[in-house]
């Protein structure tokens, strides 16, 4: 008698466990599907926001930086991967206009041919001075902070300057090479 009761009890317990497990699994699946549905909605909204931000940026460029007075400064790293760039500061006619601290990801991107638009602004035609202060760790493990000055004449129309950073053996001294694009 007690044995049959025990069996019934065991079956009941097993059923109860199965139901609890089923609930637990279905709750887990529901929460997962809720999360993945939210992810899809975020992804769709992200795409709209990015498109919108690009339009706002284009409008901003046309209002704030008319082509005639526009100056853009780009930064690239020379070949060789010999410079662990820490930060770059940019001064235009003695005024600080841009600075950047580099993350490891950004450095990898620069090493692989990435180009950073360090500064975009407006500048009157005529002679100007661009000063850059580079802090970096060279391949010989030395920490260096170097200033480079470049004088240029801004002419009407968009004006772009490429700053190329390099440090070559044997001294691994950071050098900044400037190029003008008219």
């Amino acid at each position: 008698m007690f044995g049959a009761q025990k069996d019934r009890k065991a079956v009941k317990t097993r059923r109860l466990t199965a139901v609890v497990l089923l609930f637990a699994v279905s709750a887990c699946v529901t929460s997962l599907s809720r999360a993945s549905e939210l992810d899809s909605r975020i992804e769709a909204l992200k795409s709209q926001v990015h498109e919108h931000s690009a339009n706002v940026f284009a409008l901003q460029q046309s209002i704030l930086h008319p082509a005639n007075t526009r100056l853009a400064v780009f930064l690239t790293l020379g070949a060789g991967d010999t410079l662990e760039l820490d930060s770059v500061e940019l001064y235009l006619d003695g005024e600080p206009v841009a600075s950047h601290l580099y993350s490891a990801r950004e450095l990898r991107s620069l090493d692989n041919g990435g180009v950073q638009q360090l500064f975009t602004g407006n500048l009157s035609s005529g002679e100007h001075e661009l000063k850059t202060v580079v802090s970096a760790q060279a391949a010989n493990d030395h920490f260096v902070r170097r200033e480079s000055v470049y004088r240029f004449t801004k002419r009407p129309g968009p004006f772009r300057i490429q700053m190329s950073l390099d440090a070559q053996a044997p001294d691994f001294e950071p050098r900044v090479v400037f190029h003008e694009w008219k």
Partner: protein
Amino acid sequence: MKDVFLKKLALVTFGLAITGSGFAGASKEPMSAEQLRNGLVRFALANNELAPVLNSASRLEGPSADFLRAQLLLASGRTEDAISELKAVIDGDYHRADAALLLGKTLLHYQDPEAQQWLELAVRVGGRETGSEAGFYLAELHRSNGHSEKAGQVLGGLAAGYWAAVGYMNLASDYAREDLNAVRALVSLRVALAMAEQDPEVSRRKVLTGRLLVRAGYLALQNNDYDKAISFLEGVSLDGDNNLTAQALYFHGLALSKKGSSRAAMQSWHRAKKYPLAYPGVADSWIGMGRGYDLSGYLGQSGEAYLAATAALESERVTLRNLAEQIREGGAYNTLLAKARDTGVEWFLADHRIKTQPRIAYLHELLQEPEAQKAVSRVAELDAVGSELEREARDLDVFIRSLKSQLTTLSRQKPDVVGGLLSTQRFLHKELSALSAQPLSAIQRARLDAVAETLAETSTDLTTFGRSVQNQPLELERLLAEARSLKSSTERLYGQVQVLRREADRQLDELALEFVSEQDRRMVLVQDKAEQQIAHLYEYLAVSKMEGREP
């Protein structure tokens, strides 16, 4: 770091020897327009500022253009388009392995079975790093399908390094779960340790090695191999301010205690006690101290240690209740993350804070869970998008005001704006001609030539400017209409972001509250143990007294 640089140095020297002057010339050449566009996209992908480059995606050229475009599409949320673009890249000649890996990872995220074929392709055609990463994800795919053997075969073909090490670590977890003894799991962990040694990234290698050693130590302990456990655990760095060190110290004490060295065990537990109770092993170390005193025969100190443990655990439960209250009131993101980020002027104490603030310690523990990581990143992403839209709305407000004011100014201005400037231009030209007629040095001549060039360009500009001034009101009206339309879509999108943000917040709050109550349950369990020990101790003392013998 030094090793990396020495390697770089060697590579550069080697490169110089091969390429000669080619290397020096590389930086002296200005970029082409194609290099500029591609380079800007590459950097934008790295710092996640896509707005400036999104419109130039269609104008990318060169061998890397399609792959960059695919990455841009993926980063900007256009996953379907990115998948088609990635498939096209795989069919092409360049970046096949990278594209296959990215496609495999993307499909894996959506649990698409097609992921396997792309990861296999990336393993086949990829170089060392790409192939290893693809191999890791392929092994993970096999593991998640319950095929540990297949995962092991994939990992066996990978080059030594970070990806292989993580793969073997995960495989060891499977073996530890499936097997009755720890041999296979320990072998996997040993292989993972050997693989991790080849990882050139120092900080990553250090964290991974610590994790592997703690796991190996735990498994050896489970296997009653105490000497082996001690040797593994002694390899864990004590400099770490994370949960690994605390856990390693607890296991180390446990192994020593099992070997009969209670005093040495207590030294480890005493060190573990300095870490927040949120970290695994710390609460047990508090109890361990009582047990250690008991085994060493100091029953008085043992009782005190147990009482101290219950007091500490009770106080921690109050902290947990407060934390749960704060999460309910302000949300998990604000309580755990936003406040933790606000270090103010005490930023230099950040390391110390991690060890002392329970909130940050619990955040650290919560973020060990992949689901919590996803939930937090969802909220963080929506938070960033919301802030960006707020900034854009403010900017657009300024533009709208400025454009309106420009239109008002223009309506009041005299029609002939250019006339005055043209007469100045004529005057300057006359002055320049007069100066040019003077006897001049070469330097003076060059300076005058530069002035003449600027003046000529200004003249051309003034003529076109005269025409554009007439069209300016129309252009400003167009910009104003565009700014207004963008402002209204900014507000619409901001509203949508807020809806999703509330949903993401709710999911994170649920996870965080569940985590906090789980921690509370853990504290109660340990507290019960401590109280039981105190009861046993008092019982023993009472019985000893009754029997008239020294305790």
